[in-house]
């Protein structure tokens, strides 16, 4: 018997497949398209205290095996999002609120408003505006502080989503764990840019998709070797093979991001593939592969 359930903090996921933030809307849009039976949890598009317009177009570019986005965290604000709760509940899957804010206070207020969600995920890829604008997730002490402060106001499962754009990834991860995070989610996108060859216009953006898989996998592994809390691993996963690599690297669950834009039926496809892989090897669950890679260097 194969047991695919995983526990992330207090959260029981029926499958180890999490829909990553920003690539599944509020889940609602995927009604009738995605088979939610294959989904362990839905992470909604990042939400802030007040509405955000996001960036002017263009917002999305294609790069070799990758997607570069500069959505700019567009969202209607937490109040409007809470109104969607009845609709968001329909798939019957645990809901994770992905939050972003520019101050510790706003993060706390947001978290306190998320009572009806099953878990909270802090997106630390945005800048801390009060303290010099440094991105929360680039600085272990900032990351630890915001995690600790949010921890005080909520008993919900608290996930911290890490940015890979830092040398101090492991220290940031440790700081979040010490400050009370129940789990870590990584990676968010890698900073890149694109240029239009005709107009010479240029845009910054975050890179995701298969291109980043080798980098993301390494980020997950480095964090796995440092912390004890479970990890939701993501970055370029397109099929079961990629997913299994993240489990072998140490992820307890995996996130599907960009692939949802191309194939909204990816959750079932990936889940079936994982089951097949486990069966063929007589393995009984994610725990039999989690972290089990063998370094050859």
């Amino acid at each position, binding site marked *: 018997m194969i047991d695919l359930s995983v526990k992330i903090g207090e959260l029981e996921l029926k499958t180890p497949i999490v829909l990553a933030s920003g690539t599944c809307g509020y889940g609602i849009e995927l009604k009738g*398209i995605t088979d939610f039976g294959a989904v362990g949890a839905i992470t909604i598009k990042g939400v802030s205290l007040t509405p955000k317009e996001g960036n*002017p177009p263009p917002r*999305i570019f294609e790069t070799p*095996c990758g997607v570069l*986005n500069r*959505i700019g965290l567009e969202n209607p604000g937490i109040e409007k999002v809470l109104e969607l709760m009845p609709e968001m509940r329909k798939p019957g899957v645990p809901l994770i609120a992905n939050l972003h804010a520019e101050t510790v206070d706003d993060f706390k207020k947001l978290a306190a408003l998320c009572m009806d969600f099953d878990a909270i995920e802090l997106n630390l890829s945005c800048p801390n505006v009060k303290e010099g604008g440094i991105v929360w997730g680039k600085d272990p002490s900032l990351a630890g502080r915001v995690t600790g402060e949010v921890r005080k106001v909520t008993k919900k499962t608290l996930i911290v989503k890490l940015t890979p754009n830092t040398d101090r990834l492991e220290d940031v991860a440790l700081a979040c764990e010490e400050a009370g995070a129940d789990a870590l989610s990584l990676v968010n996108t890698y900073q890149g840019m694109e240029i239009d060859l005709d107009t010479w216009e240029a845009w910054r953006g975050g890179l995701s998709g298969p291109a980043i898989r080798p980098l993301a996998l390494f980020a997950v592994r480095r964090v796995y070797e440092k912390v004890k809390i479970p990890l939701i691993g993501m970055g370029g996963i397109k099929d079961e093979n990629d997913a299994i690599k993240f489990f072998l690297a140490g992820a307890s669950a995996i996130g599907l991001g960009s692939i949802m*834009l191309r194939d909204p039926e990816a959750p079932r496809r990936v889940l079936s593939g994982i089951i097949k892989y486990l069966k063929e090897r007589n393995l009984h669950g994610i725990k039999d592969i989690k972290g089990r890679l063998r370094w050859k260097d």
Partner: protein
Amino acid sequence: MRLREGRVKRNEKKGNFYWMEVEIPEIPSLAGPGQFVMVRGWEGYELFLPRPLSIAWSSSTCLFFLIRVKGRGTELLSRMKPGEKIWITGPLGRRIELPEKFILVGGGIGIAPLLFLSRWGKGYAFVGGKNKDEIFGTELLEKNGFEVFLATEDGSLGYKGTVVDLFFKKLPERLPVYACGPRPMLEKLQGYDGEIYGFLEERMGCGMGICKGCAIRTKGGIKHLCTDGPVFNLKEVVFD
């Protein structure tokens, strides 16, 4: 609206465009005017995203696309051969309500979604392009009860000049207008003093509202091409 696998039935070069017929029985009966689909004609991931294409025509089991090669994605689509697999999600976007009589204004590849619209009414169709190789679909429009006015910039077919010039010159009746074409064309049409709707374009991620990639500026704030559009009241759109 799920991701379906279809098969290319034909793919013919017509002037500067390709006319592609795809067998994909699940979609045609659901498709309405103004809608589009996301199309992928390759299995690899180098081109990660599917491409948005207008539904240009349909039969009971097939969709028809009119394609202009722009970059790698449309090039791959243009090279597809009968029998090859193709993946399509749709129909997507907002189905529009059409009056009985209306005017179509299409520039270049912009004629694609207008052909489909012509099935739902009667009226006048202004069709323009750089030259005669960018004029497509006049017989179909006529068969559907549209009087066709042609314009080419080089004068190789019909009026010599832009289709917008021709439109403002020949405007037969003050009817609602549905336009599709390059941005400057739509901007000029904003000046029409009647109801005017335009098919907009923007880079898309998903085509179904989950990525927020397809933002469009309107007087009422940011809208999303794939869920609020692709057809917008042109007077509401803010071009910049």
